[in-house]
């Protein structure tokens, strides 16, 4: 149907322009319908049981968790149910795609994919950058280009974090770029010809040569670490033959070559031509906007602008400009900011519209994330021996993604509009082989657990813990902690020693490897985290820092540095003391989506599957564990979420004069499981509440069980 639509649109367009074929832009619903048609054709050779579509509320829960990373509130359920039945789903999808929370949720997906780690050089800035790119709809190919081609200072140039991740090691980056952006595991070919695939060591070295001149460099200024830079050298480090094969032979510099095959021509639906046309249109619109802006600007604006500029100039011209010059002349001079021509070339190859694999990879990853199973599994292992289950569907979606200008939101929208995404579950007795066949044909929704961040945020949401739900002073508790305090000087007459440098000795237990904040934490802290201020993380601090340092006399700088050096005191004697403090424990949790990630080892998010993103083969493990059970049964989050607070709507339904137990039970089910209870469940809930010391406690027990049950953590 769509094809016909496209063709009819083609004819008048060709006459009008006659240069590039102009075609109508199919909307996501049309693409989804066409993908479904192709997939059905591809399923013709398969036999499998077919599940019905997921019911309306099941869909609502699923789409909220998948698009914005948490379950809907009762108010959101009501809004949804108030919409006309035929438009509910599509309208909700559109609405959710435009929320900031969409960027929060999908930044997690990209953080996993790009292995973003806040604690490496520029890691926090990269985490913020990825989030911002999603929020402002930076096309996916542009994002990829920036990450592959970045140069400059970690933090100030957030994109550099991607390559600095692996210390800019050319061989590591070769594996990373092919696996992350193309879903191809070429890294085995680093040491030997690929055992399961066509890649040879020469292919690997050809690709590695694009990274051959890239280095991670630390720059210091007046003995201070100024920053870590991603920088280009004159010489490549990639030589052939490899060290182990050289045997005395001269090793020659390898010239870079992109080893992956590109499409020879545009596709049957002209996706490349459509992309070209789209880009021309966008460029024209942007230009028009710019002209309009200049014409519309009034005199006041222009004057304000000039005053601002003058003010900045006056204050900082000398210091600022000079400092900048200094930065540039440090070490290797002009090379400091030199962009990587080689990596730019690589980025162009990777994101070339004729390199369909680039689009296939992301389509497959997003499909797998949303549906629970990719066309190719594992998602980063495309190879001849591991073919896609529905190659034509995958290619069609990939081509449409290219034609959309690599627009990520459109891709997600398309996928969630497919009947495959909206499948329910098989009912009745289903044999495991039948279930697998249905899952492989995308005819049923596979069991899928919420990702740890969504699970965390959903508990917070269901438990009304984003804001305080108790009155101030209602929850005073005594907290006992142990602290080491100095009680005297060590009697060491012969050796008046220095106090060790912070981090070079002392009493603290190891905070992970060499000061790595990946270290675990203790107590209920395992359910908290550090929130990153994304705006601050993206601030360009380099020039400010230099400016400050230039302005300070050397003597002051030195004194400041001495402060960090050991003082001339003798070694102290310590004693452990018990400290008791009174605190008002009125818990509030913030969204886990913006926590510095990955979370520390042992943290709730890690226990439920977030990886530490250190190696390329990390994949979220969604299998149950004892630690998960302990955390849910005894953790602070679940227990506080279950407790009923006077400031939440539930309270009046349970405790007030107008208490209405049935309404309260209904609300508990809606807030936690996004559905109303059935008769059996109502009876059970009443019994639970009656059995407790107070109805408030009974409601907490019911909510605790609902938060802990499997239906809560597995998507409908």
């Amino acid at each position, binding site marked *: 149907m769509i094809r016909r639509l496209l063709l009819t649109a083609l004819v008048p367009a060709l006459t009008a322009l006659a240069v590039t074929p102009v075609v109508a832009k199919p909307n996501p619903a049309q693409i989804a319908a066409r993908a479904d048609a192709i997939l059905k054709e591809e399923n013709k050779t398969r036999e499998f049981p077919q599940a019905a579509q997921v019911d309306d509320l099941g869909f609502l829960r699923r789409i909220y968790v998948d698009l914005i990373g948490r379950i809907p509130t009762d108010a959101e359920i009501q809004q949804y149910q108030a919409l006309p039945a035929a438009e509910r789903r599509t309208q909700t999808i559109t609405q959710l795609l435009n929320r900031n929370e969409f960027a929060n949720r999908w930044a997690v997906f990209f953080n996993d994919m790009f292995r973003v780690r806040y604690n490496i050089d520029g890691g926090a800035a990269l985490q913020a950058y990825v989030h911002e790119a999603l929020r402002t709809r930076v096309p996916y190919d542009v994002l990829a280009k920036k990450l592959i081609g970045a140069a400059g200072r970690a933090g100030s140039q957030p994109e550099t974090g991607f390559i600095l991740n692996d210390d800019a090691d050319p061989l*590591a980056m070769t594996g990373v770029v092919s696996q992350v952006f193309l879903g191809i595991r070429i890294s085995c070919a680093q040491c030997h010809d690929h055992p399961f695939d066509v890649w040879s060591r020469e292919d690997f070295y050809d690709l590695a040569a694009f990274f051959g001149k890239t280095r991670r460099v630390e720059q210091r200024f007046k003995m201070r670490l100024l920053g870590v830079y991603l920088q280009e050298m004159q010489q490549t480090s990639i030589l052939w033959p490899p060290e182990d094969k050289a045997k005395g032979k001269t090793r020659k510099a390898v010239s870079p070559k992109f080893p992956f095959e590109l499409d020879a021509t545009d596709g049957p639906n002209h996706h490349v031509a459509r992309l070209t046309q789209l880009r021309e249109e966008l460029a024209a619109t942007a230009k028009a906007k710019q002209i309009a802006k200049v014409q519309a600007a009034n005199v006041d604006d222009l004057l304000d602008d000039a005053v601002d500029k003058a003010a900045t100039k006056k204050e900082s011209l000398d210091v600022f400009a000079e400092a900048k010059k200094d930065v540039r002349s440090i070490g290797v001079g002009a090379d400091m900011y030199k962009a990587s021509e080689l990596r730019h070339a690589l980025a162009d190859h990777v994101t070339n519209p004729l390199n369909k694999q680039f689009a296939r990879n992301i389509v497959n990853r997003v499909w*797998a994330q949303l549906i629970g*199973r990719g066309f190719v599994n*594992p998602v980063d292992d495309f190879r001849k021996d591991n073919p896609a289950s529905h190659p034509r569907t995958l290619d069609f979606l990939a081509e449409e993604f290219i034609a959309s200008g690599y627009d990520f939101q459109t891709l997600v929208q398309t996928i969630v509009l497919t009947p495959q995404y909206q499948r329910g*579950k098989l009912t009745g007795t289903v044999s495991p082989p039948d279930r697998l066949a249905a899952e492989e044909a995308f005819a049923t929704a*596979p*069991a*899928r657990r919420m990702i740890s961040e969504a699970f965390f945020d959903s508990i917070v949401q269901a438990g009304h813990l984003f804001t305080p739900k108790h009155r101030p002073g209602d929850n005073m508790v005594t907290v006992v902690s*142990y602290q080491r305090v100095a009680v005297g000087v060590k009697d060491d007459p012969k050796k008046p*020693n220095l106090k*060790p*440098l912070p*981090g*070079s*000795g*002392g*009493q603290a*237990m*190891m*905070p*992970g*490897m*060499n000061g790595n904040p*990946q*270290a*675990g934490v*203790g*107590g209920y802290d395992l359910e908290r985290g550090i929130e990153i201020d994304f705006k601050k993380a993206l601030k360009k601090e380099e020039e400010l820092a230099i400016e400050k340092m230039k302005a300070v006399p050397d003597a002051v700088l030195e004194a400041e540095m001495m402060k960090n*050096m*050991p003082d001339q005191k003798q*070694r102290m004697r*310590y004693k452990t003391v018990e400290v008791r403090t009174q605190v008002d424990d009125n818990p509030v949790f913030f969204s886990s989506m913006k926590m510095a990630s990955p979370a520390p080892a042992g943290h709730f998010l890690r226990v439920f599957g977030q990886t530490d993103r250190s*190696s*390329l*083969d990390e*994949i*979220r*493990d*969604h*299998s*149950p*564990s*004892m630690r998960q*059970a*302990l*955390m849910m*049964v*005894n953790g602070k989050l679940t*227990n506080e979420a279950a407790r009923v607070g006077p400031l939440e709507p539930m309270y009046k339904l349970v405790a007030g004069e107008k208490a209405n137990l049935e309404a309260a039970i209904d609300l508990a089910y809606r807030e936690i499981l996004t559905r109303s209870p059935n008769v059996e469940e109502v009876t*059970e809930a009443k019994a639970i509440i009656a059995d*407790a010391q107070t109805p408030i*406690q009974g409601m907490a*027990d*019911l909510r*605790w*069980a609902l938060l802990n*049950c*499997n*239906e809560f953590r*597995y998507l409908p």
Partner: protein
Amino acid sequence: MSLRSSGCAGYNALSRRTFLGAATGTFLGMNLQSLVARAGTDFTPTAEHVILFWNGGGMSHIDTFDPKPGRPTQGEFEPIPTSVPGIQISEIFPLLAKQMKHIALIRSIAGTNGDHGRATYQLRTSYNQSANLQHPGIGSVVAHEKEQAGDLPSYITIGGLAPKAGYLGQRCEAYYVGRPGDRDPYLAFPANIGEVRGNKRLDILQRMNQRQNAKILSDDTDSAQTALVDAVKLMRSPALEAFEVRKEKPEVLERYGDSEFGRGALLARRLVENGVRFVQVNRGGFDVHANAFPAMRDHGDIMDPALASLISDLAESGLLQKTLIITLSEFGRTPKINPQEGRDHHPTVFSCLMAGGGVRGGQVIGSSDADGFAPKDRPVKVPEIHASICHALGVNPNKEVMTPLQRPMKLVDNGIPVKELFS
């Protein structure tokens, strides 16, 4: 979503251990015991537990177990005699010196990685880091090979990270204890939930799950139930008492040194007494690029009473024969003292301490050259240490297990046990 369901064993129906065992049996085609027997003649393994002290940052060998008196590289410390004639260690360990008859020192570890991350990886796993495979730490290997004994988890790490279990699966991951002596809040119902109410909640949950599981259609719901049962069993276990280090008599706490490390060593002892197979006690602060000597003196103050008391307590109770104690660090420090009075990274040669678990005490294996720069006699490769740990436990370090991508991997990276340890 289980895209790599074959890899993430967790609580899956098919016992990973059985599966891997079967795979290995056919691969090797011979009896494992015979291989172990071949590695060391006339050796009957006695070790059942391991306590690993991880000294993060790279512990100086010259200032601890390999003193170089009279050399320019000596540094501030003098060597002191030990209870074994002819063996001297640094003055920062006066109490440990008295336990020398139980201790074997290796002074010739020949490392190759000078970077914290890569060196830590190898010293903990025996393998060099690779881009596409996560190797399991030695603790996970032990947890994988030795059956759980008692209610407590087989593998517990205290005060820091343990390496990951990699392809050995989630069940071989370490159980994490933040600070020794602190109550782990996750091992009991929250303060405001009494025993009766807590158990009632568990009953409600059980009923709900049974009703729902048919709808969820997941292979994982059974294992979620097993995980929950295991969790409740652990919560109710009297063995949890082992974590209550502060219940020890004040004089015992004092004897281990009033420090987190001391309490860590004490906790390790209590855990081993309760059947835990592998305990890792973590401590950092050895990366002394500046002011190395005062820092090392403080380290001595903290480590000496803890290690010495642990060895003597275990020796007294007879558990030392069954418990291998080992201290490891990612590398040593440069013999040369830098202008900041510090020492830098030095993987070329460094030392470790082993005691108990069938290791013959009172000996030094290998040596470094006059300045402590490079191995002189009997260089010991890093995987030989891990192979020795396996050997002490009667585990064949060359046993192969399958990775998720069906690649056979040895438990230890081609290590041969250091036979002198067990002679």
